[in-house]
């Protein structure tokens, strides 16, 4: 196999070979390689296929901006990751990497036919090609788009790794550990500040890693770097590598994603794969450098065509020559240095093709000294080669006229279109940019955060300029934080500064209509697409972007944005700043969902609240259902019993003898104070003044818009103390609403509100034998029917535990609710369960509770109401106090809309065939013969099979429902229309005789 490794060169350890596989073929890398550098060392440029045209592609860059070389990596079951950039993924022993977007294999791919059909797939093809005929959509177009769309393959297995999450507070956060970042960190640290320095690469140094020739203060760059990192560590700087600043959020909060395992063969057990840091910094210094731009010419995407600066990085950092014979194509000085470095390492430079007529004299003469042909004032008009570039077609340009072409044979093309400051994070802050006409790029302008930008990020080129600016910005940050310090100045020899010009697509003598000159490699957008978008009427850069998808791939246009802008502004005939730039958004690079989720997965996704009696339910085989955050016993199936059978048994046992239910999840709020009764009068619809201590009442809570918000039984324990219950899901909301009115509308009321939901365990006993079960345990209270009638409350002792005992019912049967301190709940439950045996006491869950209450027509807020239902709509207008001067929602109940005819009202529904159970949520119509779409007059809110009624029952909200008693309505379902009769929602014991036992 060809070996492109240069002995003794680079920062990788060539004496420590590492084996890995790519598309099941084994390769040898050096320790420190990325997948891209290792494959290039083995002469492999072809690493993937493009997204739309399936064109063969190789790496065009050497860092995280890489658009082409996307691979899948797999470490084990559930540890597959698609779309990893081969230029970032470090090689470790046993790494298994695969190419993407190919079938059947990378070298021969059927999808390549898309490349021949590119005329059909031009800008906006989604909007045009698939519009007609309409009948083709389901069968032809959508399957085609779904098969073609998406980069790589999504993992389907559960991710076994875990992800960590941390907060960090720091005085100064420096993003980017190149020369500017290093110098900034040094200044700030020497001022005595806490400094955090982060870099996405595996080691700090930035451009210094690619420029070992530089001498800083007389020392070789890499020696200086090692000493500088040691000095920073001594100063207490927290240096984090493999850590990407993914987003810059409000008030100097920066999100960092730190990779911890993806580069080692056998990670330590229990170490998280990634760690998300939420950093709050006093000052943020962005020292992210600049990204090189490609040149836009026909065939600029063939494997072997790459950025000149990246070729220089592969050589100097990884010790890899990217080819044997290179043609350098450039509009910027920097590519000359790449050419010179490569020549020294044994790569022949066929020519430096400079688009500029007059490149700097000294660079041209340096090239001549090395016997490199320099073609000034030239353009590139094409490349050849299927899986690897074989030649470049170049032409002279004179006065805008493209001369005769010549073919230069080569195995790689190194291009440079100049450099773009990396301002993505700055863009997250909504800081403004200004167009710099000389450099033909956007530079940072107005800051919105305590943020500084250093080095190439603000258009300064060269190591010395970056070091000087970094040191200065570090000092500025220190001064802002009250620790003034002088910035140090460092001298650099053999620095490589330079300038260049900016281009649209390069001029050509061939038809531009046939040119495949790529601007956005990842989304396969060409210069022609951008011009077509403008021709078809797109004027805003945001529209051009969406129509062509330029800059919309996972790299967010890191390389393509300025080229795209130059072409769009040329096509529009407007200068760049008037065309504008699209917005970069977090994250800076693709970030795993695991890192965002952190600990919040599986059982930790959200809290599961359990009652004190939950453990008993679990041990006794309960099926559970979630109710807001609570886990509640749903029903208690016996062996082999279906849910329906269990619920029917539980209903029957409760109505015939006694059932026991864990009601501990009910929200409970203690309302106390001298003005407690006045507060209750104002909050709830009901009158409370005349409710005597020891009595309880159904309470109804509205919003000031008149709609039902919550309900629950409320007991008055003394003149100044109410025990308020709320729905299980509504507790926090109700307390918040009470606090809101108390604090902000009626701050004069002397009232205290306390959540007591979790302080009480609540056990409900219902059924004709309920009293018989609990009576022997009650001390200090006569609970006979006469002494303790329905809707009573008292404090007493039950089974030796202090208790608040309510006689209330949500089933229509004789009922008691015993509240005891939570720690006694389980013991009381077990005591009552044993005592109930002679009465065949049956435990029941939420499903039976729902059925029993529906048989009585008791509503469940949020099921039978939906936020647009008034008490009168729900048929519980009796709960609204008529003589009160005010309560929350009172005024709204008189608003014209709320008293209008035709409002949806809660009614009962009985299917005419007496056997069909309606679907909850099913829509109701009056005339089933009307054309579709039918006029819907309401929907089914609750529906159950009722043992007590001997048939299915349902509740529904129907327009004008209270006036439709006895009428037939229709419920159209997929398999036919169901007829039902409108009735009262009370299906059982309408006189309430059973409550009085």
């Amino acid at each position: 196999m060809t070996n492109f490794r240069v002995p003794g060169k680079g920062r990788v350890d060539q004496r420590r070979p590492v084996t890995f596989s790519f598309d099941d073929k084994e390769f040898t890398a050096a320790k420190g390689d990325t997948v891209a550098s290792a494959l290039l060392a083995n002469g492999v440029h072809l690493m993937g296929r493009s997204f739309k045209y399936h064109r063969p592609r190789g790496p065009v860059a050497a860092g995280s901006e890489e658009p082409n070389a996307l691979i899948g990596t797999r470490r084990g079951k559930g540890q597959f990751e698609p779309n990893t950039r081969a230029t970032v993924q470090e090689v470790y022993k046993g790494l298994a990497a695969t190419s993407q977007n190919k079938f059947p294999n990378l070298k021969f791919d059927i999808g390549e036919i898309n490349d021949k059909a590119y005329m059909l797939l031009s800008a906006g093809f989604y909007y045009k090609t698939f519009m007609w005929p309409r009948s083709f959509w389901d069968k032809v177009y959508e399957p085609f788009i779904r098969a073609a769309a998406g980069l790589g393959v999504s993992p389907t297995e559960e991710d076994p790794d875990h992800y960590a999450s941390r907060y960090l507070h720091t005085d100064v956060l420096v993003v980017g550990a190149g020369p500017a970042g290093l110098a900034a960190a040094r200044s700030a640290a020497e001022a005595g500040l806490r400094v955090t320095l982060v870099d996405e690469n595996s080691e700090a140094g930035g451009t210094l890693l690619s420029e070992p020739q530089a001498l800083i203060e007389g020392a070789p760059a890499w020696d200086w770097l090692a000493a500088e990192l040691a000095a920073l560590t001594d100063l207490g700087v927290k240096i984090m590598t493999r850590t990407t600043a993914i987003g810059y959020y409000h008030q100097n909060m920066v999100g960092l994603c730190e990779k911890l395992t993806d580069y080692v063969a056998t990670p330590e057990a229990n170490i998280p794969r990634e760690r998300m840091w939420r950093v709050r910094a006093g000052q943020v210094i962005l020292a992210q450098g600049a990204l090189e731009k490609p040149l836009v010419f026909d065939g600029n995407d063939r494997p072997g065509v790459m950025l000149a600066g990246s070729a220089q990085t592969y050589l100097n950092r990884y010790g890899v020559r990217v080819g044997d014979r290179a043609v350098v194509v450039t509009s910027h000085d920097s590519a000359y240095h790449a050419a010179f470095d490569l020549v020294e390492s044994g790569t022949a430079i066929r020519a430096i093709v400079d688009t500029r007529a007059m490149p700097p004299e000294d660079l041209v003469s340096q090239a001549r000294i090395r016997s490199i042909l320099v073609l000034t004032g030239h353009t590139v008009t094409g490349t050849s080669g299927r899986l690897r570039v074989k030649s470049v077609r170049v032409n002279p340009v004179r006065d805008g006229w493209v001369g005769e072409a010549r073919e230069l044979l080569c195995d790689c093309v190194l291009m440079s279109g100049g450099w773009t400051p990396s301002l993505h994070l700055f863009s997250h802050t909504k800081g403004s940019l200004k167009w710099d006409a000389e450099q033909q790029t956007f530079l940072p302008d107005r800051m919105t955060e305590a943020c500084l930008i250093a080095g190439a990020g603000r258009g300064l080129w060269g190591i010395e300029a970056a070091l000087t600016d970094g040191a200065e910005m570090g000092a500025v940050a220190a001064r802002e934080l009250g620790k003034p310090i002088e910035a140090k100045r460092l001298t650099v020899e053999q620095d490589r500064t330079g300038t260049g010009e900016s281009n649209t697509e390069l001029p050509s003598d061939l038809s531009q209509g046939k040119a495949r000159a790529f601007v956005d490699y990842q989304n396969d957008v060409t210069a022609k697409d951008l011009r077509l978008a403008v021709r078809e009427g797109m004027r805003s850069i945001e529209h051009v972007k969406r129509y062509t998808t330029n800059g919309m791939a996972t790299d967010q246009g890191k390389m393509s944005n300025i080229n795209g802008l130059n072409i769009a502004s040329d096509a529009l005939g407007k200068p760049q700043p008037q065309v504008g730039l699209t917005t970069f958004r977090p994250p800076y690079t693709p970030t795993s969902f695991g890192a965002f989720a952190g600990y919040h997965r599986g059982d930790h996704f959200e809290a599961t609240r359990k009652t004190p009696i939950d453990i008993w339910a679990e041990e006794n085989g309960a099926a559970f259902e979630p109710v807001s955050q609570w886990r509640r016993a749903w029903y208690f199936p016996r062996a082999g019993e279906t849910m329906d059978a269990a619920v029917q048994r539980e209903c029957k046992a409760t109505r015939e003898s006694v059932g026991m239910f864990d009601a501990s999840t009910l929200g409970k709020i203690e309302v106390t104070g001298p003005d407690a009764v006045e507060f209750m009068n104002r909050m709830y619809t009901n009158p409370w003044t005349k409710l005597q201590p020891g009595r309880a009442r159904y309470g109804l809570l509205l919003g000031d818009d008149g709609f039902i918000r919550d309900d629950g039984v409320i007991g008055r324990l003394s003149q100044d103390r109410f025990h308020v219950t709320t729905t299980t899901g509504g507790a926090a909301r109700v307390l918040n609403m009470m606090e809101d009115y108390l604090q902000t509308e009626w701050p004069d009321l002397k009232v205290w509100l306390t959540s007591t939901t979790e302080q009480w365990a609540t056990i409900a006993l219902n059924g004709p034998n309920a009293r018989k079960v609990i009576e022997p345990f009650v001390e200090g209270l006569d609970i006979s029917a006469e002494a303790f009638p329905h809707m009573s409350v008292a404090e007493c002792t039950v089974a030796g535990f202090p208790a608040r005992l309510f006689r209330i019912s949500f089933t229509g049967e004789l009922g008691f609710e015993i509240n005891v301190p939570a720690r006694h709940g389980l013991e009381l439950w077990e005591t009552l369960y044993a005592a109930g045996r002679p009465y065949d006491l049956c435990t029941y869950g939420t499903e039976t509770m729902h059925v029993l209450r529906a048989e009585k027509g008791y509503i469940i807020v949020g099921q039978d109401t939906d936020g647009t239902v008034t008490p009168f709509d729900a048929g519980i207008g009796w709960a609204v106090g008529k003589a009160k001067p005010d309560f929350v929602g009172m005024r709204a109940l008189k608003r014209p809309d709320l008293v209008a005819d035709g409002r949806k009202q809660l009614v009962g529904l009985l299917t005419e065939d007496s056997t069909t159970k309606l679907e909850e949520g099913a829509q109701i119509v009056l005339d089933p013969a009307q054309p579709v779409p039918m006029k819907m007059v309401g929907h089914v809110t609750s529906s159950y099979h009722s043992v007590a009624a001997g048939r299915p029952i349902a509740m529904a909200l129907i327009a004008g429902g209270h006036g439709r008693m006895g009428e037939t309505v229709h419920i159209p379902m997929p398999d036919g229309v169901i007829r039902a009769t409108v009735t009262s929602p009370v299906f059982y014991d309408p006189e309430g005789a059973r409550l009085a036992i």
Partner: protein
Amino acid sequence: MLLIKCPYCDETLPELEFAYAGEAHITRPPTPAEASDEEWRDFLFIRSNVKGAHYERWRHVHGCGRFFNAVRDTVSDRFLVTYPAGGLRPAVDDVTGSSK
């Protein structure tokens, strides 16, 4: 994540501790029974929806539990000032002038 100063705790704390509670200085008519339909409609539904300094309520729900008022710039999403519930509405110039 925003940083919010609770005027009761007198501390600047992360947004996670707070809950938004709608526009501030919306007066509930003191005698609702006498309010016209239009007045009640305005109280319920009509909000300023400003671009710029917005007077709004927050609750330090995971802290002291108090409701308070704030002026936030809806363009920059930056808090200009926070002040206790019931406090006088500060003039826009005063809060924007003092903001950074």
